[in-house]
């Protein structure tokens, strides 16, 4: 069987950063397996700018951000094998791959980094009723058609979901000559960042309907109409509030799911809250020598954080290959009030410092994040603003970690539910967008 020291599944931003970090730690036999015909992952189709402010202190487009990493990889002996699909992964780190040039082969890896990214939730995942006509696309699929293949998917567009991909597509479709009639968001706040609401919707007078959803899809062959209704606090449609939009296209921007079929196959333990592997602070999974990073681990808001996390995984894989394993008993992080998940989920007692990433469940202002060890407060971090669309992080240095006596400290939000939920806006006929008081997020999602 062919052997490689480090095999990385996925050549997007996560895989590239992990490979470079491992290379910089001295690993010399690194193979990246990429299923698409070019490396760079989803960044290739994210041609808008806003990437890299943290990483490079400048605003880059997706291809530029990926290009920076690809250039760095070029200066190494890291191998990128494109057009290659990993069909199987088992718990002893044997991969089965297939490609046009090499056929079907098995590879034994010394260590594996899972960097497969995520996929979009579909119409089926949210069971939107209505006709089975054409014209309903996930925003990412439409983005690929538009930006990579150079085709328009329609002329009159409604967007369901105000996540960043949907907002970005509203602007792209408009600039390419389509009419975007509305962006419809089920929640009372947007899942996208303020800047995108201003620059992708307001700039083009596209209305945003918060606390609304699509309740019917009409059209025999191609989409002809969507029916949008206001929803109540329980997210049920309110009869009598229906609006009908004549359109030929409905774009769905209704969430992303980490793509962990290979991880499951290998027997990696999955956290149902993130839908990603359960990891230690070094991003090692429940199977030793298997690491995970990027959107396969949890859906990030910023590619910059993907890169940082992936470098951590790459360094840890390098250490593993040198025979260095973290020691120390297990600390299991518990999700407290309003905390949706944490990454990592487990920490080795005695590590130097740990950065904890998580998302809150509701929009909040002027509150704090607390780490509690039973009744004892270990740390408190003030926050002026938090929202589910935004990934939070806190850093616990060694001195604070050492204060944790128990095995199950809690990460929680301090404030009781004072999250000011803005009033749902009235549909505007003048096309003036209505924006939530607390739109969230930083820069566009990769």
């Amino acid at each position, binding site marked *: 069987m062919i052997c490689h020291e480090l095999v990385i599944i996925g050549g997007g931003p996560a895989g590239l950063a992990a490979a470079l970090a491992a290379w910089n730690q001295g690993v010399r036999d690194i193979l990246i397996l990429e299923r698409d*015909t*070019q490396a760079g992952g989803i960044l*290739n189709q994210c*041609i*808008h*700018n806003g990437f890299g402010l943290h990483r490079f202190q400048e*605003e*880059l*487009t*997706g*291809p*530029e951000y990926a*290009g920076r990493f690809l250039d760095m990889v070029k200066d190494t002996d890291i191998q990128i*094998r*494109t*057009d290659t699909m990993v069909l199987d992964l088992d718990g002893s780190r044997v991969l089965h791959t297939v*490609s*046009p*040039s*090499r056929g079907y082969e098995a590879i034994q890896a010394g260590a594996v980094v899972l960097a497969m990214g995520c996929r979009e939730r579909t119409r089926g995942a949210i069971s939107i009723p209505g006709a089975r006509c054409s014209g309903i696309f996930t925003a990412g699929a439409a983005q690929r058609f*538009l*930006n*990579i*293949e*150079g085709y328009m998917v329609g002329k009159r567009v409604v967007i369901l979901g105000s996540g960043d991909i949907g907002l970005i597509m509203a602007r792209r479709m408009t*600039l*390419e000559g389509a009419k975007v009639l509305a962006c419809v968001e089920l929640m009372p706040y947007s899942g996208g*960042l*303020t*800047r995108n*609401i*201003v*620059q992708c919707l*307001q*700039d083009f007078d596209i209305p945003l309907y918060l606390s609304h959803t699509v309740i019917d899809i009409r059209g025999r062959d191609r989409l002809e109409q969507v029916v949008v209704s206001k929803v109540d606090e329980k997210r049920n449609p309110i009869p009598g509030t229906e609006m009908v939009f004549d359109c030929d296209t409905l774009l769905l921007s209704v969430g992303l799911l980490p793509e962990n079929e290979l991880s499951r196959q290998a027997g990696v333990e999955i956290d149902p809250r993130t839908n990603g592997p359960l990891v230690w602070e070094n991003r090692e999974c429940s199977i030793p020598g298997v690491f995970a990073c990027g959107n396969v681990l949890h859906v990030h808001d910023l590619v910059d954080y993907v890169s940082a996390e992936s470098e951590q995984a790459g360094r840890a894989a390098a250490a593993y290959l040198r025979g260095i394993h973290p020691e120390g008993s297990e600390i299991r992080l518990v999700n407290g009030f309003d905390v949706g998940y944490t990454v990592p989920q487990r920490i080795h007692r005695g590590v130097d410092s740990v950065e904890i990433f998580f998302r809150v469940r509701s929009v909040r202002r002027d509150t704090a994040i607390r780490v509690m060890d039973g009744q004892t407060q270990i740390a408190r971090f003030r926050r*002026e*603003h938090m*929202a589910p669309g*935004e990934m939070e992080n806190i850093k616990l240095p060694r001195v604070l970690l050492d204060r944790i006596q128990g095995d199950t400290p809690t990460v929680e939000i301090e404030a009781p539910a004072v999250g000011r939920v803005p009033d749902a806006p009235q549909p505007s006929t003048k096309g003036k967008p209505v*924006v939530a*008081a*607390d*739109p*969230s*997020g*930083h820069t566009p999602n990769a």
Partner: protein
Amino acid sequence: MKEIICITCPKGCHLKVDEETFAVTGNSCPRGAVYGANELRNPVRVVTSTVVVKTSPDKGRGTGEAGGGVAPRRLPVKTDRPIPKGKMFEVMDEIARLRVQPPVKVGDILIPNVAGTDGNLVATKSLP
């Protein structure tokens, strides 16, 4: 008074900007005041788009070589600085007329001074 939302940070303050004096209220930090005034005086945006790549007929998706032999159909581009918001569609019109022939390197200027904005249209990806 014009109402706008500050995008300087995730808080999203609702600003009120005087259209004559450009005085800003509703901001919770000085950066908001600067943003509000600029957004009324001279709002600017970076435009990103794609340009049609001239393809040779023999470069379709191949039958097997590593990489798949894909001939890219579009080249991603951007204005190398924010351009006046009102000029966005003029810039798009110029982009629509452009055809590029590989090779192209990231950062190559494809249209200098695009639509008379002082910004240049540059490639954001290299094509061999």
